[in-house]
């Protein structure tokens, strides 16, 4: 087979383009050009390391291309401490000095969680190479980008050079999903099921490429959920080949006006393995403490008493997630003894949910609606758990200590399970009603 006709997976195609080569293969070591480099508050550490790189060189510390850097404040907003506020201030000053325009400060018009801000503003395009100092950067594969999480020092290097140094082209696991979800079964259930099948390390150093009619029929919000949580099976990235839905999202939601390429993997691309899933056979799923791969059908843990429910995060804080909760809680009340927090993924989603009346429905039911941010998901800003508390969350991780207390438990589920359980105060199968 000649070089130019080599069959390639999605990630191989993207990395070939990003390195100006006709073809690349899994295992090749490359230095791809970066199209978008995102950081949140941990940009403070990136900045520290960036300045460290230039120390003693006699050169000015300027980023390679300010138009390709995004800084989004979301982890501790508004700042919970003077320390955070000072870190945010340092970054704000840096952003101004360097002329970084993809900057989303703490604002009710354009702020929000980085993994919602990037897609909804059209910053992510099919075929792009996206890095972020956040493990859930995998989300952006939903738009056909190769997007992966890196550490702060690696990002400092990207800020300096505009390339990711010494990247090994990952192998790919192909996941084919066919069939129609049963009522109350959602993309979150699909990805939880897949993580349970693969285990927490089953896709370590691999890309998960999603195919099948279920994926083709899935809106971008659902694709963001499944790519987001691909990292919980260890994946470098999740990716959905861009299609008509991708173009619709970019045009209608992200207001992208220029032409956008769509492409897929070659038909005879080489995969490490293929997994087939029948979506129609899936029950609602739940990940039990303290690992994300400890996944069971929800009926197996139904009846377990809960103390806090969280709907939000980069995984499930989008408009359709909030809509599901509002529809279930319409005219009902959150059970006494349960605290329910909803935090929309972006200010824009917050405003849309407000205009549609979802937020007042939720508040009338007893929900606390919080501003957009990451805080409760990782226990760093509001919503901490008490010793012995059990939380049910639509977020992405249930590690011991995740919600701020190692003496508490976190279960992960879809917004349908979370909302049904809010009414009863115990883990509830949404097919049996809340």
């Amino acid at each position, binding site marked *: 087979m000649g070089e130019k006709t080599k069959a390639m997976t999605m990630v191989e195609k993207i990395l070939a383009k990003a390195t100006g080569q006709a073809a690349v293969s899994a295992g090749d070591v490359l230095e791809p050009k970066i199209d978008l480099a995102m950081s949140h508050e*941990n940009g403070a550490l990136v900045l520290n390391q960036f300045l460290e790189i230039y120390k003693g060189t006699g050169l000015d510390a300027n980023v390679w291309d300010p138009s390709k850097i995004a800084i989004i404040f979301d982890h501790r907003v508004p700042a919970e401490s003077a320390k955070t506020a000072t870190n945010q201030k340092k970054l704000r000053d840096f952003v101004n000095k360097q002329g970084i325009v993809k900057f989303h400060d703490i604002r009710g018009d354009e702020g929000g969680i980085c993994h919602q801000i990037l897609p909804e503003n059209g910053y992510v395009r099919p075929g792009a190479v996206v890095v972020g100092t956040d493990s859930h950067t995998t989300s952006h594969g939903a738009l056909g980008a190769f997007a992966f999480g890196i*550490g702060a*020092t*690696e990002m400092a290097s990207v800020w300096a050079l505009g390339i990711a140094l*010494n990247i090994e082209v990952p192998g790919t696991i192909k996941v084919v999903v066919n069939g129609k979800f049963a009522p109350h079964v959602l993309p979150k259930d699909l990805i939880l099921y897949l993580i349970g099948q693969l285990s927490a390390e089953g896709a370590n150093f691999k890309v998960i490429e999603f195919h099948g009619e279920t994926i083709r029929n899935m809106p971008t919000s659902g694709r963001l959920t499944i790519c987001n949580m691909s990292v919980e099976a260890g994946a*470098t990235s999740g990716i959905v080949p861009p299609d008509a839905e991708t173009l619709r999202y970019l045009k209608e939601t992200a207001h992208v006006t220029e032409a956008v390429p769509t492409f897929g993997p070659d038909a005879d691309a080489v995969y490490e393995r293929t997994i087939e899933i029948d979506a129609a056979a899936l029950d609602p799923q739940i990940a039990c403490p303290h690992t994300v791969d400890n996944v069971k059908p929800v009926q197996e843990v139904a009846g377990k008493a809960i103390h806090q429910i969280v709907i939000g995060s980069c995984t499930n804080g989008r408009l359709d997630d909030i809509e599901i909760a509002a529809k279930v809680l319409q005219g009902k009340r959150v059970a006494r003894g349960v605290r329910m927090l909803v935090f929309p993924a972006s200010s824009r989603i917050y405003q849309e949910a407000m205009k549609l009346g979802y937020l007042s429905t939720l508040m009338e039911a007893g929900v606390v609606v919080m501003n957009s941010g990451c805080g409760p998901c990782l226990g760093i800003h509001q919503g901490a758990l008490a010793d012995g508390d059990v939380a049910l969350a639509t977020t992405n991780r249930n590690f011991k200590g995740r919600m701020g207390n190692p003496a508490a438990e976190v279960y992960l589920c879809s917004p349908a399970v979370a909302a049904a359980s809010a009414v009863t105060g115990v883990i509830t199968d949404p097919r049996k009603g809340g």
Partner: protein
Amino acid sequence: MGKVVLLLGDDISTDIIYPGRFMATVLPSETPQFAFADSVEFNKQLKAGEIPPGSVIVAGKNFGCGSSREQAASCLKGPDLVVVARHFARIFLQNSINLGMRTVICPDIEAEQGDELEIGADKVTNKTSGKSYAIVALPKSRQAIIDAGGLIPYTRQRILQEKK
């Protein structure tokens, strides 16, 4: 030679290594105080300076899974701890290499708390049990970074080369 000071199982997440509630602290000089903060006894010994440099953490599969927080690597690099694990999660492994920290992939490692380990180029010898275990080389793609002593000096070299 290093003594095993912490023995851990599989899937040790970055939330266990460096709990999220301390993430506002970012500087490598400040993160070691929060290393394994919820493993209270170990953290106390570490802060009291009772754990000598070169001491070893032995762990199972997928060490460092979860978040990309670099604090999880810098908090171990500061007190010069070595992690010997059956294998590592991708981002943690890259972070530790980028910071010039010593990480050892040793798929069959067996050790108990207090054992003395000798870490060679291609094997780990448990001096207490007398058994040796093969080391899997770190990804070849990272060798240039390891040779330079970490990603900061490596990137600095690259910038200076480009200027020439």
